[in-house]
């Protein structure tokens, strides 16, 4: 007698479809390499060899660590400022009203302008990259937090007041969970931007990190190595997202409607 097949779990199905998407991207890349040739787009095999070479030579580890530090430190510092001012803006109208146009201006300023200024202010090195990441991440978190604070349920706040909930409990039990729907996509966006901006700042400042590696590879016209650095940077971003944000998404998904992976989605 045939045993009925057990349906795949949603997480496994999601992983299978995710792999299918990555395979489609790899297929498109390989097709591009075959059509345009190695001087425009190196093949998957050439890039793979370059990745192995970078890892074996011991260049990849320190560079990835440096970019990770620039991206995470900048994202944490800028995100914390944006989050705290967003909470303050939600509690005190003048703070929100004063901060909003400032952060809108920061959000609209091209990161490249900040890189140039940061190079003049901090000199070449990791400081410029970290600063540029921080100033890029802060407005993303500020706007999401302020929106969340303004959308929170006043009835629940009154209930908590009547039950004499202490301020810290109101923050952890009411404010933070209510902000989760706004913060989780904003954090994913900020983290992705942080890696992009960190690498760009490193390229321009000649600092250590993936950006420094890309700058060196570019000066040697070494396309497979350039692509290898890009692949390694994306792998680290995906790993950071899986370790830092996926647990938050899973926790949030357990209480109702799903949350998109990113505010851009």
């Amino acid at each position: 007698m045939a045993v009925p097949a057990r349906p795949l779990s949603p997480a496994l199905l999601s992983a299978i479809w995710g792999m299918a998407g990555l395979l489609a991207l790899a297929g498109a890349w390989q097709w591009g390499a075959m059509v345009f040739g190695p001087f425009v787009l190196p093949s998957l095999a050439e890039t793979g060899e370059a990745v192995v070479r970078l890892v074996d030579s011991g260049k990849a580890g320190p560079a990835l660590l440096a970019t990770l530090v620039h991206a995470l430190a900048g994202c944490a510092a800028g995100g914390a400022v944006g989050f705290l001012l967003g909470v303050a803006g939600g509690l005190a109208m003048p703070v929100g009203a004063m901060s909003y146009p400032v952060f809108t201006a920061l959000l609209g300023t091209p990161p490249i302008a900040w890189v140039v200024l940061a190079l003049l202010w901090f000199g070449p090195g990791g400081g410029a990259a970290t600063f540029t990441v921080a100033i890029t991440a802060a407005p993303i978190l500020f706007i999401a937090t302020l929106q969340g604070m303004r959308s929170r349920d006043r009835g629940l706040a009154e209930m908590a007041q009547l039950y004499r909930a202490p301020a810290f409990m109101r923050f952890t039990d009411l404010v933070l969970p209510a902000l989760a729907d706004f913060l989780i996509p904003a954090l994913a966006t900020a983290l992705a931007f942080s890696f992009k901006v960190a690498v760009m700042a490193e390229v321009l400042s000649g600092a250590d990190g993936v950006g420094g590696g890309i700058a060196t590879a570019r000066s040697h016209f070494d396309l497979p190595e350039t692509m290898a650095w890009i692949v390694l940077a994306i792998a680290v971003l995906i790993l950071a997202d899986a370790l830092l944000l996926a647990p938050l998404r899973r926790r949030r998904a357990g209480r109702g409607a799903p949350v998109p992976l990113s505010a851009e989605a």
Partner: protein
Amino acid sequence: MLSLSGLRLRFGAAEIIAGIDLHIGAGELVVLLGPSGCGKTSLLRIAAGVERATAGRVENGFRRVAMVFQDPRLLPWADARDNAAFGLKAAGMGKAERRTIAEAILLRLGFSAGDLDKRPSQLSGGMMQRVAIARAFALSPDLVLMDEPFSALDVGLRHDLQALLRAEVEGAGAAVLFVTHDVTEAVRLADRIVVFSPRPACVVADVTQAPMLASVGAAYEASAALLRRAEIAAALAPPGASPLALAGARERLSLAGKASAARR
């Protein structure tokens, strides 16, 4: 004891409450009955301390005060057990102890063990309101303020919850100030019914009675008897209702009560 003396409330030019004296003793279930928008909820909010009266005195000798709102106001991200334990957590009680107390009350209010882990989105309206009642009574309050907590529920469910509430109140020995615009609900629940006039609110009647939960027919009869009093009928009449229509409504209510009593 909760004492409200010479209480007045104005919002700008609008007078909401025009001088009310009300005293509620320990273990008493007092229903504030009045038409919609007459200022009952405002009075409850003043008693709760979240709104200030324009004039008058509020003396609250009750130490533990809880409130049940018209909507359940549950945390969407917390399960029934944690929602019921919210007040205990606010009071600083440890996790295991507060969850045990919340569980016991929820089970008494008709929850099954499997329902305790459900979030509000997985519960019906009646179940959510039971969680809100459990949250209030988990505190072992000596005063519970209730703002039309059953108004969004159907009649059968409302009757069930009224019986559960009365049993809970008698078990806990808590005083309750219960706001409603439903005469039959007032009659079924109250030890005392205080009738408010339309806005600006003042007390038009203060009736002491025995709660009539046991018989629907008797509750209808008592409601009709209340509405036969001209000052109460006038206070509860919808705006623009003629005296003739009111008399007809009172008569229909009385006949419905007699028919229901005869069926029993």
